[in-house]
């Protein structure tokens, strides 16, 4: 399977569209960084208008950690499209080119082929996230410097101590990776039902858009299905940036406010990945390959 994985990775990385995703990420992050570098003060003043009416904040709010949080918040909504471009093409692309039958002539089980293809799309997804981390976190730290992280949530404000931030990013990126692998698994699964790439890519995005709308709308009828939608759990990476306080309202350094929520969301996402990939294996094993 290792050889097959290498072949799949070779196929992914010789396609121009793969680099298009990396270029798009670079451009998006650069736009955000340049924008905040030029007019970041106005952005923070806008976000903090309500808060600054009562409090004066002293310190470097617009630092690399804050910028990376803004980038993740904006980008993780759009990255699924870039992941779908590759993952939803894994089988449908082969079918479109007529190479799927040739592929199955190899002395390997269909399950091994499916898993190798899925692992290749996972590797691509992880590399994309590592690229986001390099540009979004490390370049932002280099350009904007570091300080405590000032986050404004809907009902409260969190100030994370500088020394307590980095491991939270490590956790947040790991969780984001899990979310994006779920997207890859969905795209991969849908790619078994078409003989061209456009259909599964559009279908993947449509599913994500509809599920995201259902996750974000606060309407009682949808609240019952929300916990089962993977899009509800994709934003749980933010939980890494909230900590517990003791009875005296003192921050407990190194703690997470809702670790249970992170575990629960991670389990839901893993369940989705297993379900999508498992279904893909089942479909592929019984599929009559004609292309």
């Amino acid at each position, binding site marked *: 399977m290792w050889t097959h994985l290498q072949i799949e990775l070779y196929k992914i990385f010789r396609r121009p569209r793969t680099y298009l995703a990396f270029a798009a990420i670079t451009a998006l992050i650069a736009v955000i960084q340049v924008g905040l570098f030029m007019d970041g003060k106005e952005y923070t003043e806008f*976000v903090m208008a*309500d*808060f*600054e*009416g*009562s*409090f*004066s*904040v*002293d*310190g*470097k*709010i617009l630092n690399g950690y804050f910028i990376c949080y803004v980038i993740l*918040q904006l980008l993780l909504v759009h990255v699924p499209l870039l992941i779908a471009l590759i993952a939803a093409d894994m089988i449908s692309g082969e079918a479109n080119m007529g190479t799927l039958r040739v592929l199955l002539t190899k002395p390997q089980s269909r399950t091994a082929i499916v898993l190798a293809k899925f692992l290749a799309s996972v590797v691509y997804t992880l590399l994309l996230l590592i690229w986001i981390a390099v540009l979004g976190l490390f370049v932002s730290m280099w350009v904007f410097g570091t*300080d*405590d992280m*000032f986050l*404004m*949530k*809907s*009902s*409260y*404000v*969190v*100030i*994370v*101590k*500088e020394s*307590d931030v980095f491991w939270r990013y490590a956790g947040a990126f790991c969780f984001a990776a899990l979310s994006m692998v779920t997207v890859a698994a969905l795209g991969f699964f849908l790619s078994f039902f078409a003989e061209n790439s456009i259909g599964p890519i559009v279908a993947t995005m449509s599913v994500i858009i509809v599920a995201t709308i259902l*996750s*974000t709308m*606060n309407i009682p009828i949808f609240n019952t299905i929300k916990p089962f939608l993977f899009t*509800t759990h994709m*934003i749980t990476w*933010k939980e890494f940036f*909230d*900590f517990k*306080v003791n009875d*005296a*309202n*003192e*921050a407990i*350094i190194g703690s997470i406010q809702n670790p249970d929520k992170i575990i629960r969301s991670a389990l839901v996402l893993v369940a989705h990945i297993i379900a999508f990939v498992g279904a893909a294996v089942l479909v592929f094993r019984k599929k009559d390959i004609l292309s």
Partner: protein
Amino acid sequence: MIKQVPYTIKVTCFLLLLFICPATSALAQDVTELVKKVKAKLDQVNDYTATGKMKTDVAFIKAPVGSIKVFYRKPNLFRLQRNGGISVLPKGGVSVNIGNMIVSDGFTALDAGTGMIGKSKARIIKLLPEGDNNDVILSTLYIDEVNLLILKSVTTTRENGTYEMEMYYGKFASFGLPDKVSFSFNTKDYKLPKGITMEFDDTDAAVKDKMKGKKGRVEITYTAYEINKGIAAAFFK
């Protein structure tokens, strides 16, 4: 028919007024003297630099305890500098500073009796600034008459509401400088649209309830003072 007030009552009232008015005036003079004594004690300090820890205790702010450095120069120059990190202070220049609790000049002091602050007996004095342009409308001081220390102050301002300061003394009590200052203030409810924060799940109702209607507090615990070493006025600009 209008009833005449008996002559004896009239005489009694006159005599009472005759005795009470000077007594009230004497009390007012007493408390003014007391305030002046406390001010004189504080006036020993021309400037100081202090290091300490600052804790922000506001229901809707989760913040770590931070190290700070405080600079003061007579009469009211004050600067709070954080040693790295982000600090949040209530607006309105809570120059968390003992010097500006006593209006510098022109005030009327009224005796409001005595009370207990912790285990210490305190004289309660209300200070009314005489000028119209002063931001402070009313200041209530709780003064330890024996040690000439301000234990607590409640200040009502035109712009920034009412705030309270409680002082705890130790090594630097002889200069009238506290080891710990607890500054309480009223907070407005805080809310930011979910569209800006991009958080779509609701905060727990229990957490929301905990955040409502609580007073905010900033606590500064001083670890060391350097008194009268000289700080240039330009430093505060």
